[in-house]
């Protein structure tokens, strides 16, 4: 039971950690000062949510575990985030499309997760909804603006959406831990979010004069800990300080 709960939380929290780290890479490199701060704010929101989840996991696991050992000292296979969030920034079109696809999913998930029978998880979800509502507004507005902007912005955002589309289906896959937690009333059945997700995404793409990609083969694996080639580099960055100077504080 406890192990499934921990794995279930990783399945949610690791998405925010890895995406937060990815957006964090843009700090100081955003296309404009305003966008740079906006993206960094989103990253910090996500990392704040992650801390609450990991503090809870540390309590469940006991021993010497802390939020830091959980964030920094796991091996690649032990991270259970979806492949979508570890995809590289490439350019602003990719970063904002990745954000948009994840935000729509994230908000749908949290809206259900606030009804979790686990009080801690429910409380984290309730607090996160306000933040993620703003993330969704921010990224959706940018999709509209770039899609319905110039020919170049339209083409580039369409290319990014086409590329990232292959990673959307995995959002709705269930792991063994997911199924157990749904049965216990703690977890959310993500398979039931799929229709609303594609409906919402399609509506915004349509408004933005963008095409919804048609795809029959999707990428998967992250939820089982089998990640893309980008993940190792990301973790090297993320974990460097704790690996080099164990137990460091600042």
């Amino acid at each position: 039971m406890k192990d499934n709960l921990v794995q279930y939380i990783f399945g949610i929290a690791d998405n925010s950690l890895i995406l937060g780290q990815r957006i964090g890479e843009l700090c100081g490199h955003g296309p404009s000062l305003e966008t740079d701060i906006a993206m960094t704010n989103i990253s910090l929101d996500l990392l704040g949510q992650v801390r609450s989840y990991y503090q809870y996991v540390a309590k469940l696991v006991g021993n010497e575990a802390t939020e830091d050992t959980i964030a920094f000292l796991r091996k690649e296979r032990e991270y259970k985030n979806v492949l979508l969030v570890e995809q590289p920034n490439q350019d602003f079109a990719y970063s904002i499309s990745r954000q948009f696809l994840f935000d729509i999913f994230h908000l749908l998930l949290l809206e259900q997760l606030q009804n979790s029978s686990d009080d801690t998880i429910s409380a984290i979800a309730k607090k996160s909804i306000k933040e993620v509502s703003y993330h969704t507004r921010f990224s959706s507005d940018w999709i509209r603006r770039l899609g319905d902007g110039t020919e170049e912005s339209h083409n580039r955002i369409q290319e990014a959406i086409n590329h990232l589309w292959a990673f959307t289906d995995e959002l709705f896959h269930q792991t063994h831990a997911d199924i157990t937690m749904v049965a216990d009333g703690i977890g959310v059945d993500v398979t039931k979010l799929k229709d609303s997700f594609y409906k919402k995404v399609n509506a915004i793409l349509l408004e933005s004069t963008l095409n919804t990609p048609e795809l029959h083969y999707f990428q998967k694996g992250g939820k089982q800990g089998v990640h893309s080639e980008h993940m190792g580099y990301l973790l090297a960055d993320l974990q460097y300080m704790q690996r080099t100077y164990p137990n460091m504080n600042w």
Partner: protein
Amino acid sequence: MKNWPLWEVFIRSKNGLEHRHCGSLHASDATMALENARDVYTRRMEGVSIWVVPSAQITASNPDDSAELFEPAKDKVYRHPTFYELPDELKHM
């Protein structure tokens, strides 16, 4: 992006107070200006309401006219309402 117009940002720090000018930013339209203002100027709970105004819409006084506009008020202290007792409940005067 270099062609984005400049906007002036006004933040109301608490309900009941007035909006105050707090800075400016670049944005392509009013919606983006509001979002940018939220992200740049209200990160530390500075506000409960935001106004954005295109800077081009503001008519400003000319610094060269300062002497005739403002200096005549300098020696007219009697215009300051310093001779009234203010009740304690009255804040933000």
